[in-house]
């Protein structure tokens, strides 16, 4: 019998034993009321592993009341004492942003908890302690679990647990949930838990402390968390706490909100930002006196490369190398050059399309129907040919590179690298996520902007997404179109980056606010696995193809109908003055109309007529098409997320801005006599 099977039997028997024991204990102790434990902490700190270690296999999964967020509940015993344990969704702060965080906060606000276990990643103690301090402020019965101690030791981190425990005034337990190390001590502390009298206190300035005293005095009802924590959350205008106070302390609610209003008006910056700074300062002081990191020479190759990728001095050159070989050489030269040439010119141009056209012309007597199938905007000659012969090879090569970047763990490092630029333009690093998502699909990315903390950030991110972030397919085709003119390609990159910074800076000046901090877990860097990369590429390609073919066919039908009724010519005539003003031939007008329906369709149209355009015209078209109106799908999501008024304003601004930039760019390049 192999070792794997032996181990499986060992664990199976152990699981069965735990199940039996749990079952016996359950029946014995049903009459005894169990104590409630809540596991809480950031995502990816090993909460679920700790939960499984404590409960064995006895778990029930249910939706948190009134929400779609599921919560795991389990039971276990320590001696004769019975415990119910809840694994809460990951949270970074009590001032919740996401729905998951909100559910964890509601658990604390609405349910009485006997013990709260705050699980942190020992490697990132400084970043995670602010939440511990917030929980201490809430006067909750906390045990701080420093998990992943094995990984912390590997990176040379040494923590003085007893000193930290003394300073915080709560039990601190080092564990490695993956191996079960430290769990006996945790069980012992849970079994003998008693709250200490002297606990750490975060102190704010006089104005805040005065407001906290006033609000605390006005809160009359009893709540599971302290009046101080409720007051601090009210000062941050937390919607859930406001609702709770209104329901239970309705008579004093107006007075409380008046104190909140008077206090917030005395500060230029939002209080949640100032509170976060205060908590972080305390956390940094605590860590500096209790944690030491020895410089270790045992950095793995992955960690070394990872650091190089995040550091701007080395990270930017690495990014440029990836762009040159991955995007320019592989996607642009090979995918768009060699592959498209083979598929479009030879396979479709010489073999398939002549056969299909002959068949349609010889068998279908109606000219209008012939036009619909194989005409200028025909389903086959435009829709299917664009999707298969132009988009597919380009996007296929792009997806291969993207899958390599994803599988290696480069994407989160790219996000960390971009974070610094984002802070400069007034966006939090968290906005990196919708921007990276925008490279995939702008619609989903626009939806994800809702996770940004302030309305200002959400609006700036939506503008930047609509304006300067090309989606995967569009990016691939633009690289392909400009691949034959390298100087035009690099100019396009520079112009986009420049516009990105200018628009971000302007928007942040027009809509001032705070720059929240960036939280992101960095998974380990690894060598991409060929089978995974190929599988991901194949999956993406199939999904993309399934998505675009029906759409391209539909757009072909719409264009055919518009052409048949003469509306298309009217539309082209309408935008022709603008097109000629930016120095482009009339043929490109169709490209922009296609681009409105779908960005990649417009880019494919540009690819199709690229041989008729000069380098300058190609650059101007690529810039305007990138900046131009987001596609219909993205616009619809924008209206859902930001409302019609803001979306129409953004769309109006985007179209005007795109053509203005095109005009200026063309004028500068032609005046200077630049040849690209």
């Amino acid at each position, binding site marked *: 019998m192999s070792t794997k099977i032996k181990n499986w039997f060992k664990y199976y028997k152990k699981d069965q034993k735990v199940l039996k024991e749990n079952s016996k204990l359950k029946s014995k102790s049903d009459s005894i009321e169990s104590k409630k434990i809540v596991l809480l902490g950031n995502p*990816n700190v090993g909460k679920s592993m700790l939960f499984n270690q404590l409960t064995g296999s006895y778990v029930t999964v249910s939706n948190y009341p009134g929400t779609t967020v599921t919560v795991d509940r389990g039971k276990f015993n320590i001696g004769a004492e019975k415990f119910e344990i809840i694994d809460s969704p990951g949270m970074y702060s009590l001032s919740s942003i996401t729905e998951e965080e909100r559910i964890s906060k509601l658990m604390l606000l609405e349910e009485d908890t006997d013990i709260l276990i705050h699980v942190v990643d020992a490697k990132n103690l400084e970043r995670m302690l602010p939440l511990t301090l917030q929980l201490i402020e809430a006067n909750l019965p906390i045990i701080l679990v420093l998990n992943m101690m094995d990984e912390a030791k590997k990176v040379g981190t040494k923590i003085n647990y007893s000193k930290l425990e003394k300073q915080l005034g709560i039990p601190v337990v080092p564990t490695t949930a993956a191996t079960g190390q430290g769990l006996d001590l945790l069980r012992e502390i849970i079994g003998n838990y008693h709250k200490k009298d002297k606990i750490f206190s975060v102190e704010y300035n006089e104005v805040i402390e005065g407001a906290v005293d006033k609000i605390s005095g006005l809160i009359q009802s009893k709540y599971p968390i302290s009046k101080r924590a409720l007051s601090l959350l009210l000062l941050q205008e937390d919607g859930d706490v406001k609702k709770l106070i209104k329901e239970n302390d309705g008579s004093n609610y107006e007075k409380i909100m008046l104190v909140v209003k008077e206090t917030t008006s005395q500060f230029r910056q939002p209080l949640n930002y100032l509170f976060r700074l205060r908590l972080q300062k305390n956390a940094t002081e605590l860590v500096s006196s209790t944690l030491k990191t020895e410089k270790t020479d045992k950095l793995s190759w992955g960690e070394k490369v990872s650091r190089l990728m995040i550091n701007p001095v080395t990270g930017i050159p690495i990014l440029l190398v990836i762009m040159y070989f991955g995007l320019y050489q592989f996607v642009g030269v090979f995918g768009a050059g060699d592959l498209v040439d083979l598929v479009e010119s030879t396979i479709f141009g010489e073999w398939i399309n002549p056969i299909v056209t002959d068949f349609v012309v010889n068998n279908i007597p109606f000219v209008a129907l012939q036009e619909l199938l194989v005409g200028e905007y025909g389903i086959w000659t435009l829709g299917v040919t664009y999707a298969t012969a132009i988009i597919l090879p380009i996007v296929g090569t792009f997806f291969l590179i993207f899958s390599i970047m994803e599988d290696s*763990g480069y994407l989160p490092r790219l996000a960390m690298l971009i974070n610094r630029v984002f802070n400069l333009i007034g966006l939090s690093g968290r906005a990196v*996520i919708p921007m990276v998502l925008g490279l995939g699909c702008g619609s989903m990315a626009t939806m994800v902007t809702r996770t940004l903390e302030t309305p200002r950030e959400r609006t700036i991110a939506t503008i930047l997404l609509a304006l300067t972030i090309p989606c995967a397919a569009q990016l691939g085709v633009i690289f392909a179109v400009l691949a034959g003119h390298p100087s035009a390609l690099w100019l396009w990159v520079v112009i986009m980056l420049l516009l990105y910074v200018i628009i971000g800076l302007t928007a942040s000046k027009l809509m001032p606010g705070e720059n929240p901090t960036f939280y992101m*877990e960095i998974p380990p860097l690894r060598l991409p696995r060929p089978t995974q990369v190929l599988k991901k590429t194949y*999956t993406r390609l*199939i*999904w993309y193809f399934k*998505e675009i073919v029906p759409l391209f066919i539909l757009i072909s039908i719409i264009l055919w109908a518009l052409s048949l009724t003469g509306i298309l010519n009217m539309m082209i005539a309408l935008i022709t003055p603008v097109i000629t003003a930016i120095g482009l031939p009339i043929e490109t007008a169709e490209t922009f109309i296609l681009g409105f329906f779908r960005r990649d369709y417009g880019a494919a149209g540009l690819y199709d007529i690229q041989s008729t355009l000069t380098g300058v015209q190609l650059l101007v078209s690529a810039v305007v098409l990138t900046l131009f109106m987001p596609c219909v799908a993205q616009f619809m999501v924008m209206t859902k997320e930001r409302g019609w008024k803001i979306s129409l304003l953004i769309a109006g601004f985007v179209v005007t801005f795109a053509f203005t930039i095109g005009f200026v760019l063309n004028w500068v390049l032609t005046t200077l006599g630049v040849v690209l």
Partner: protein
Amino acid sequence: MKCALCGYDFDETKRLEICQGCLGSGCKKIRCPNCGYETLPDPEIGSKIMKFLKKLKKEA
């Protein structure tokens, strides 16, 4: 599953809601509840091919 962007471990059934931007909105992409990054489920044809290849490998 583990999100390829933020590393968040999540249950596939707890995926973020779909954006409903595209026509039909029948999209089955799995979106990380922490950051929204999209992962694609294996296409059915792909799964069948993989199963067939595994079967062939076993028989060999």
